[in-house]
């Protein structure tokens, strides 16, 4: 029983990491219907910006909530800028092109950030210093709860709430949803499509930046390819929950994290990576459109 609780805690923590990445993924998809493969790499850039910020701006900072917030803001601003550049130079010229072109561009941008990252940051992994005061809490029966896990778990839900509010309760969110419905119509009724999409990218990238820093907090080893696997898993999580659906992304991510942990813990760790895909396939075959997704079937 204790082992089960421990696995559950670990699975929830892993799931909330996926959730942080999945939120940005799902938001950009929701508006642009674009699988932004570069999202995982913006996430990577975010954690490196965080790292360099700590190294050069606040080299002697003690781990505290204040430090963490500073690093978070720096990473969010930095990643947002990267996101804007990508949107302006890579995605915007392709607004009217078939979606598969934008997809290939996204893959190209993703490769560019990965290989560029290896040139700029170096290929070897780097240590991400502690920025949050950390505590391991033994909650009885040899079950250990890490305060960082708790922070990330809470953060993912807070961000989900903020995003939901933004999308469903604000004027900007209304424009976003209009564009997601039909870009042309939105344009016709006077929505500044480019501006809304740009802001969507800013928010999505800032989210990725925040996720990057929190990732560094949870797994203090970062390298230029770190976005690849979480990016893919987060994307699966987003599809699982119904891509474009904010709550769905978080639920999908938590399901993915939990099942990966249970399978690795109880059955076999050999096929852990295959599991994510198996779940994805089963869910999509039974319920195309994801758990919370609409039934609308789209074409590339």
């Amino acid at each position, binding site marked *: 029983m204790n082992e089960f609780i421990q696995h559950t805690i670990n699975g929830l923590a892993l799931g909330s990491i996926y959730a942080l990445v999945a939120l940005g993924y799902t938001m950009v998809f929701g508006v642009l219907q674009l699988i932004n493969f570069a999202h995982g790499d913006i996430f990577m850039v975010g954690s490196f910006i965080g790292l360099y910020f700590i190294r050069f701006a606040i080299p002697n900072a003690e781990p505290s909530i204040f430090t963490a917030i500073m690093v978070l803001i720096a990473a969010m601003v930095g990643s947002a800028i990267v996101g804007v550049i990508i949107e302006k130079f890579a995605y915007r010229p392709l607004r009217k092109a078939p979606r598969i072109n934008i997809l290939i561009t996204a893959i190209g941008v993703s490769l560019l950030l990965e290989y560029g990252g290896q040139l700029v940051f170096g290929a070897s992994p780097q240590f991400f210093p502690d920025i949050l005061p950390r505590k391991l809490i033994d909650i009885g029966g040899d079950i*250990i709860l890490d305060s960082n896990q708790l922070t990330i778990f809470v953060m993912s839900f807070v961000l989900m709430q903020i995003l939901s509010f933004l999308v469903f309760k604000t004027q900007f969110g209304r424009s976003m949803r209009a564009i997601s419905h039909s870009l042309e119509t939105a344009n016709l009724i006077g929505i500044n499509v480019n501006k809304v999409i740009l802001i969507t990218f800013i928010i999505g990238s800032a989210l990725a930046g925040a996720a990057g820093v929190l990732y560094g907090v949870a797994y203090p080893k970062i390298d230029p390819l770190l976005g690849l696997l979480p990016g893919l898993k987060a994307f699966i999580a987003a599809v699982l929950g119904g891509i474009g659906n904010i709550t769905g992304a978080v639920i999908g991510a938590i399901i993915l994290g939990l099942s990966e942990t249970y399978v690795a813990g109880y059955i076999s760790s050999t096929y852990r990576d295959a599991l994510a895909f198996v779940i994805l396939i089963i869910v999509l075959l039974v319920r195309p459109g994801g758990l919370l997704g609409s039934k609308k079937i789209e074409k590339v």
Partner: protein
Amino acid sequence: MIMKSFLLSVLVILSACQNKANDKIVIGNFGSLTGAEATFGISTKQGIELAIEEWNKAGGVLGKQIELKAYDNQGKPEEARLSVEKLINVDNVVAVLGEVASTRSLAAAPVAQQYKVPMISPSSTNPLVTQKGDYIFRVCFIDPFQGEVMAKFAFNSLKLKKGAILRDSKSDYSMGLANYFIKTFEALGGTIVADEKFVSGDVDFKAQLTSIKNKSPEFIFVPGYYTEVGLIARQAREAGVKVPLMGGDGWDSDKLTEIGGAAVEGSYFSNHYTVEDPRPEVQNFIANYKTKFGTMPDALAASGYDAARVLLEAIKRANSIEGQKLRDSIAATKDFQGATGIITINEQRDATKSAVVLKVVGKAFKFVESVKP
């Protein structure tokens, strides 16, 4: 405008790419300089560069300067094979140094064998690699030897009887090392209570570690690279696993203690050499590497350095760069004073050298014992 810029770029490239007649001795290196395993390929290349620079400063070999041609393969076997084809057929290298990963060495070795160009692998540990032909050599341990060293160390020296394994199912090195470790450890009378796997690139090992913890082993053997081991150690301690971790030469890097912090304290791993070794080869290597690249060398850099030096030494002894003579000369390497130990190439074209077992103490790796082959 279009025409102009086109012609211009053609000119620029043509002028830059002219194949110069070479009065230098060209050595080839292929490795994963980009992609997921870039850090290993780059370390190896830096080790090779250092060796060549030292030799060039001392006047080169056979009266000529030495030039290194290094090609990237992105960690893909088919590109490894292509780049060796290119090194041999286009760049006319006298010998090829490479690959870290046995998979890529296995893909490329038949090419080197076909054209009878000697190939020395710095750190491919799978026994199969040098069986690809009589032109294929290596300067590192093979998996069976290292696995045995650690199994005997755990059983005899530390008197531990119950072990757990956490290995990388994507890495041939990790799988092989674990297999030989288990074989020896069980033959000695020990038991393996858990055998868990991860995939290189993973960052979350808590599920595996929680299962391992509940089997209460006396140690965990983690054959893998420093890139993962630091995190594994951290998460093991956080999960409440207090037993020592053990590993192989893939652990040897500054990054291990940088990422692992206090969590790797008290762990053991086998390695080629120890920084405490007073031999000038070791001390010079470490000092020069630090000056040139600003970091401590890892095991891969040391192996690359030695592979290059074994080769250059062999060229000097053979007094020729002709394939057959060079091959014989490399095969005759005996008691070579390398940074990674005293290397003798045996009949299987593998290096025989002793291994050392090191213990992580603070930021340093302390010598525990030395094991002869």
